[in-house]
């Protein structure tokens, strides 16, 4: 009798803990800032090993490629795993986790952030990368590698500690699903004038930082070991504000030239779309969400261009 009571007590306690876990997970999901996407949640919803192509990189990746269109019109079964401010080390860890979860046959890497050696950018961007990432060895490795402040690491596992104060800003969309489609696709309707893309006419090169090259090598090795085809490209963009000196964009293009020369001998295609900007027939008044990023019209135009010109011949 006493034993039965004990077992009943333990069972009730376990049920309570399970319900509490669900409650905390739901609360975390509600307060999490979804304005920067919530792609891991979407990726987890995919059937295991059902995705063929994973798209990695920065906001330029998810603003340029429409994965829903790729699937519906071209039959490319892709998933958008790019996040705002996804640095090269983050991309490496995203690829590692994506391979564990889905084992795609192709990884498309938008290589804009290869030109600098930041490991993380803002806290919000870092959270948008880590939040929802499945708990496991890859997440642990990534957190320990990328988050220097040890006292803050815990909040990348328990992000309620970071976002709980958002209770003040909760609105209806926070209680619904995220801004991404089931394939992680973003759809930006806002239209603002884009800034004209400055194209570097010479083939000057600038070596990328050593730290970034280290992670690029890791990514290449990871893909080789897992028999995954790696495709790299950069989407064109202009200066951030009208009147800004385009020298910064030229410097980046020099880095892209260097990367092209570095990866192509390894059999990795690198497409520098700055060189094809005229063929894209961009409408700077209609195709942009802000000065540098495409809206849904630019995204569709760019996606079609990539497929129809054979860059995405998967």
């Amino acid at each position: 009798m006493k034993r039965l009571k004990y077992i009943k007590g333990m069972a009730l306690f376990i049920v309570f803990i399970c319900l509490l876990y669900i409650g905390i997970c739901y609360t975390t999901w509600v307060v999490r800032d979804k304005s920067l996407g919530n792609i891991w949640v979407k990726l987890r919803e995919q059937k295991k090993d059902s995705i063929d192509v994973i798209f990695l990189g920065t906001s330029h990746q998810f603003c340029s490629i429409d994965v829903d269109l790729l699937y519906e019109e071209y039959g490319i079964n892709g998933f958008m795993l790019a996040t705002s401010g996804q640095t090269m080390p983050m991309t490496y860890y995203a690829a590692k986790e994506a391979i564990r979860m889905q084992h795609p046959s192709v990884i498309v890497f938008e290589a804009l952030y290869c030109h600098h050696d930041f490991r993380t950018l803002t806290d919000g961007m870092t959270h948008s990368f880590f939040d929802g990432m499945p708990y496991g060895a890859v997440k642990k490795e990534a957190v320990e590698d990328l988050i220097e402040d040890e006292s803050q690491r815990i909040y990348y596992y328990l992000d309620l500690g970071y976002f709980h104060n958002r209770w003040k800003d909760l609105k209806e969309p926070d209680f619904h699903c995220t801004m991404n489609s089931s394939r992680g696709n973003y759809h930006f309707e806002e239209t603002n004038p884009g800034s004209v893309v400055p194209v570097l006419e010479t083939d000057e090169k600038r070596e990328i930082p050593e730290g970034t090259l280290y992670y690029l090598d890791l990514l290449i090795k990871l893909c080789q070991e897992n028999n995954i085809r790696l495709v790299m490209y950069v989407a064109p963009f202009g200066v951030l504000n009208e009147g800004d000196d385009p020298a910064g964009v030229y410097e980046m293009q020099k880095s892209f030239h260097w990367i092209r020369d570095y990866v192509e001998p390894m059999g990795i295609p690198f497409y520098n779309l700055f060189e094809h900007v005229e063929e894209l027939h961009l409408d700077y008044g209609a195709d942009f969400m802000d000065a540098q990023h495409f809206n849904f019209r630019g995204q569709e135009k760019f996606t079609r261009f990539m497929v129809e010109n054979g860059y995405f011949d998967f």
Partner: protein
Amino acid sequence: MLFNSLQFLAFFPVVVIVYFLIPSKIRYLWLLACSYYFYMCWNPKYVLLLLASTVVTYLAGLFLVRWSDSPKRKKWVLAICLLINFGILFVFKYANFAIQTIEKLLGLVHITVPEVTIRLLLPVGISFYIFQAVSYLIDVYRGDIKPERNFFIYALFVSFFPQLVAGPIERSRNLLPQIRNLNKTHLWDSKRLLGGCALMLYGFFLKMVIADRAALFVDTVFDVEKYSVYGSFEVLTGMLLFTLQIYCDFAGYTSIAIGAAKILGVELMDNFNTPYFAVSIKDFWNRWHISLSTWFRDYLYFPLGGSRKGKLRKYLNIMIVFGLSGMWHGAGWHYIFWGLLHGVYRVTGEATLKIRQKWNQICKKRTDTFSHQLWKRTCTFSLVAVAWVFFRAASLRQAVDLLFQLVSRFNPWVLFDGTLLNLGIDAKDWNVLILSILILFAVSLCRHWGKQPAKAFAEQGLLFQAVVIYFGIIAILLFGVYGAGYEAAQFIYFQF
């Protein structure tokens, strides 16, 4: 390790689970190991002080019994042991304060001495565990208790982690027998476990939702760089919120400590009994930090003669006790002034008692009415709140400035023009704070009316208790002040 840290949220369940699973005979050893680990999480080196105080008082206790027939030897043992313990306390807590005071005094007579600073961290909870160890020693000296012969049991008495760093300062009469009988405690008592959880949860609510939220406003108003710009109503609000903050901070800690100990099968003494409902300063000190007040009463006030040696001596004793109580709280003149101010309140209250009673008789004033009681409570609360300004301020000068601003810069419009919404907490934080204060008030009212909310809660149905705990946890996680962007705020009483 802070109670309101993720580290503790991982530590405590592990302690409890292992505690429940290991053989009952070695439970106290497990708790001792956990207590030392708990303390070492703050600074491993400083555990040696805890150990030193423990060893010295343990051995002294044994010697006191061995030499029970020699009062002279006993006195020597007691004196040496007190000297060592209070010596440790003085060096680590008051040495720099003493040096600076001497330097300033010499400076007044134009004698310049080279600046000396002893580079020592103030060990967390040093005043608490030393006072606890000393109380054991004096109890043994007086023959009130027998000394503990098992060193590990005694070591656990001094270092029991729930109350190690901020009390309650337990008496050996209460805690030692419970530690000795840990192996006989029936652990699987759902009422006790749920009661303990509820107390811990209430403590987290007081600390994380009320105290740390109020602190955001208080820190803004008491900011040494900017405090001079504030008028009456900002200072008044800051003062009232600090009155609330310090209570919720300390009572929150105590509630977590009592709850945690309860889960482990140990009943700790209560440290607070609705102190802001007190009708006099004397009454306030019977309700606030009870374990310290009774410590000073039993081990200082009574030995000084208490009230047995005439009125003047009584008043002097009160001033000594409150002066030392202020000093116990911190090495700073503003703490000492705070203690002395309470002493003045007490002495004035005592000295004018008969006059006030006479006045009430002449005026035929009824003193048992609600309005009279409310008046007394309001007066007591106001006096306590004013004294807290000295406690919270960084210096005596700042406290005096703030009180001067309180009475000289009348600006009631800040209550309506949104100024108070821009001093560390916004409108939504205010809403949460006000709602939380109402909950605190309701619970305090229950206690004031003689009901025990914790006991009443434990008597409710299991489902009700589970639902309250469930939503309590979620609400604290959501509305608590913690996490990235905030430093996990230390409990105020840790520094004492």
